[in-house]
């Protein structure tokens, strides 16, 4: 089942992946995810603390702040872990926690305590961006009003992936001096998180409402204005790479199930995979999947190494995986035929997640628009 996002992992990366895969299979295999999807409680604190001990939440954090990676490129390591998570439909704010941890690591000292808890898996966090910079149109926006010693935040943002058991949120708000980001605790006064129903029943999506919530100046991450815009774009790119990596793992497993089905399902006296109509569909689908893996790995590698084209590759990855991932899951559905339309077959869990992941942290259109901005720029 290994997705093999990395064509040639190092020994240290392979160890991280092997232990991660074993941990998931032992504690939260897809059969248990299905129980969560049908109403059982989500993963408990022990799940996240074990994940933290494996290194899942410190990969994008400087060693000086308690982080560490398997290779010299933590984003590539995180993407490889994300793919194995996605293949097994792991719930929990892996993407959000890593995006927030990365931002806090760059911001430095004031957030040391929260960062340590995130790295250890003792706390989860995610990024609440809403419609800021057009990322998720119609999702709502937060505004920040200055007051002595800090800001007052108001507004509501919907469609926040995996917000349910987050202890902290990195909130992007429109402030008096332009874009502003601040860390808020979900149990602070004036903050309400309520669940939303959604197509992806393996994740717990919600809305965040801020009603006169106060944050001190020491909770602000980065300088408001153009600095924060640059941070925002980098967060969006990191989130894009990681959510794409999870989605590629999801695609990998959905495809693997379709492939197995094509080999064992008999019709007209033959396994259906011997028919070119099915074989060629699967070959084309596997080409798309290989391209998606290559692109996500390339984006993680470049962005994680701060290469000049890292951002462009991240946007391209989200555009490609977001759009073509839907094609892949449709092709798998077609191969499954009627069985894919049943609740008890796992396919719909994968298909649901891919639809949600496609729009999480910016739909393909937003990422394409960022690339369009780069047209003609040398």
């Amino acid at each position, binding site marked *: 089942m290994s997705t093999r996002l*990395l*064509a*040639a992992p190092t020994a240290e990366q392979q160890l991280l992946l092997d232990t991660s895969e074993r941990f998931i299979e032992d504690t939260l295999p897809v059969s248990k995810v299905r129980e969560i999807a049908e109403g059982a409680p989500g993963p408990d604190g022990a799940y996240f603390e074990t994940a933290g001990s494996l290194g899942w939440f410190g990969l994008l954090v400087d060693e000086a702040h308690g982080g560490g990676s398997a290779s010299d490129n933590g984003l590539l390591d995180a993407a490889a872990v994300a793919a194995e998570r996605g293949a097994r439909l792991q719930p929990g704010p892996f993407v959000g926690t890593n995006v927030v941890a990365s931002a806090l690591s760059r911001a430095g000292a004031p957030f040391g305590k929260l960062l340590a808890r995130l790295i250890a898996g003792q706390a989860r966090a995610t990024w609440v961006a809403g419609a800021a910079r057009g990322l998720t149109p119609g999702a709502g926006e937060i505004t920040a009003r200055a007051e002595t010693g800090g800001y007052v935040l108001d507004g509501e943002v919907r469609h926040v992936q995996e917000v349910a058991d987050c202890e902290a949120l990195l909130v992007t708000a429109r402030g008096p001096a332009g874009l502003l980001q601040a860390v808020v605790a979900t149990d602070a006064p004036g903050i309400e998180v309520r669940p939303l129903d959604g197509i992806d029943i393996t994740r717990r999506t919600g809305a965040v409402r801020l009603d006169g919530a106060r944050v001190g100046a020491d909770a602000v991450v980065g300088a408001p204005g153009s600095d924060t815009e640059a941070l925002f774009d980098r967060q969006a790119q990191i989130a894009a790479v990681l959510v794409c990596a999870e989605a590629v793992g999801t695609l990998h497993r959905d495809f693997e199930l379709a*492939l197995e089905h*094509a*080999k064992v399902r008999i019709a007209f006296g*033959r*396994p259906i*995979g*011997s*028919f*070119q109509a*099915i*074989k*060629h569909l*699967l*070959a*084309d689908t*596997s*080409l798309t999947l*290989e*391209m*998606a*893996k*290559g*692109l996500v*790995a*390339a984006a993680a590698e470049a962005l994680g190494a701060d290469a000049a*084209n890292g951002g*462009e*590759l991240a946007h*391209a990855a989200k*555009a*490609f995986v977001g759009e073509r991932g839907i094609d892949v899951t449709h092709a798998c559905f077609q191969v499954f035929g009627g069985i894919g339309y049943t609740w008890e077959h796992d396919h719909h869990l994968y298909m649901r997640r891919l639809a949600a992941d496609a729009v999480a942290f910016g739909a393909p259109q937003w990422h*394409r628009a960022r*690339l*369009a901005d*780069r*047209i*003609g*720029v*040398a």
Partner: protein
Amino acid sequence: MAGTANTPEVPAAGSAEVTAAAPAEVQTEVQTEVPVAPAPPDGETPERFRARARAWLAANLEPANPSARGFRESAVSDVAPERALHRRLFDAGFAGITWPREYGGQGLGPEYERAFAEEARAYRLPDFGIVGGTTFRVCAPTMLAHGSPAFLRRHIPRILAGQELVVQFFSEPDAGSDLAGVRTQAVREDGRWVLNGSKIWSSGAYYADYGLCLARTDWDVPKHRGLTWFAVPVGASGVTVRRIRQINGGSQFCQEFFDDVALTDDDIVGEVNNGWTVAQTMLIFERGGGIGPGGGSSAPKGIAADLVELARSVGRLDDPAVRDEIVGVHVNDVARRALVARLGGLMRADPASAAHVASYAKLAMGTYDPLRANAALRIGGADAVSWPVGEEGRTAAAFLDGRFMAIAGGTNEMQRNGIGERVLGLPREPSFDSGRPFRDVLRDASTWTGRVPAAPPSEGRA
């Protein structure tokens, strides 16, 4: 019986440009002189070799001119100076650096070849156009793998001396994807072989000296088992080469007609009726020529620069729909480059899978090249389909060539079969022809009913 199967294709009159069969230089006589290359000096090292190459190159070759047009495949006369240039390399001991000494090569390791390539980068080397690749990277390596020592002693030194250019006589008008279904036949008569039939899509055959020809030598066995390879002199009596006029106006591809061409056992590559083994070797060299690991390293900068330039030239660069079209192409471009880089990693990790995994790169070209050409046509709009007299019409030309990789060198469908069966492990199609005499296969195919012919009674049945 099976008369239709044995009859060579008759060319449709007037359907294509007909040219002289072959250049006069190879038509007159088959030369028999075998050139001899100097041996490398005793105690040769890569460093000494490099120094020797550097000095010789500086004294003997012209500097490369990047702006000069390469060998023009439309002019047969252009090939003579290229042959002479290759002969000078051969006489100086710089041709076939890694090829065996007994066949005119230098017998040195790949590090010597790399050293020469690095030193020679700044110089103008012989350019045989598309036939150069076919000769040196596909046909000669296939010969070396399967030819008899006597055959190799006759041909390989002459190839290395620029005296023999070799093309493939492989596909036929009636056999493309199904290469083992070729119908050109060689019949044994009075100690000789008599060749009849037709081959097609042989690039540059009109200026080549030999064609490696796959012919049927036994009709009464299954198709893969009755095939034999022959080295056919392009100038031999009974060989007619016709250049095919392509949809882009060019004519590098050829069709050949064989009309009682006389061959001998000496012309055979490999063993009689074991030609399919040789063919598989050739296909591996052919694939290896096109797609190498690391092809993703030279990523162009920016967003689809050629399409941006096109949009600007037609005044549509500010059109949001055009910009989104360009972005769509760019996303596919970077995904394709990332794929090739990934495939390189997969191949290095598992060399045994390389030949099959390479099908992804081929299918990506065959799938996305046409989409890209179509996008360019949309961006160019009316200016892409009509232009001032005398201009090139490059977008239209690229559109006409857009499906090239979807068909040439193994269609998209063949790549999908290869990926499906050999990478994904899907079960094979039922085969209607692999276990029966090819003669019967062709007879029954003409009255196809969709029913699998009854299997012959199994042994021991009363």
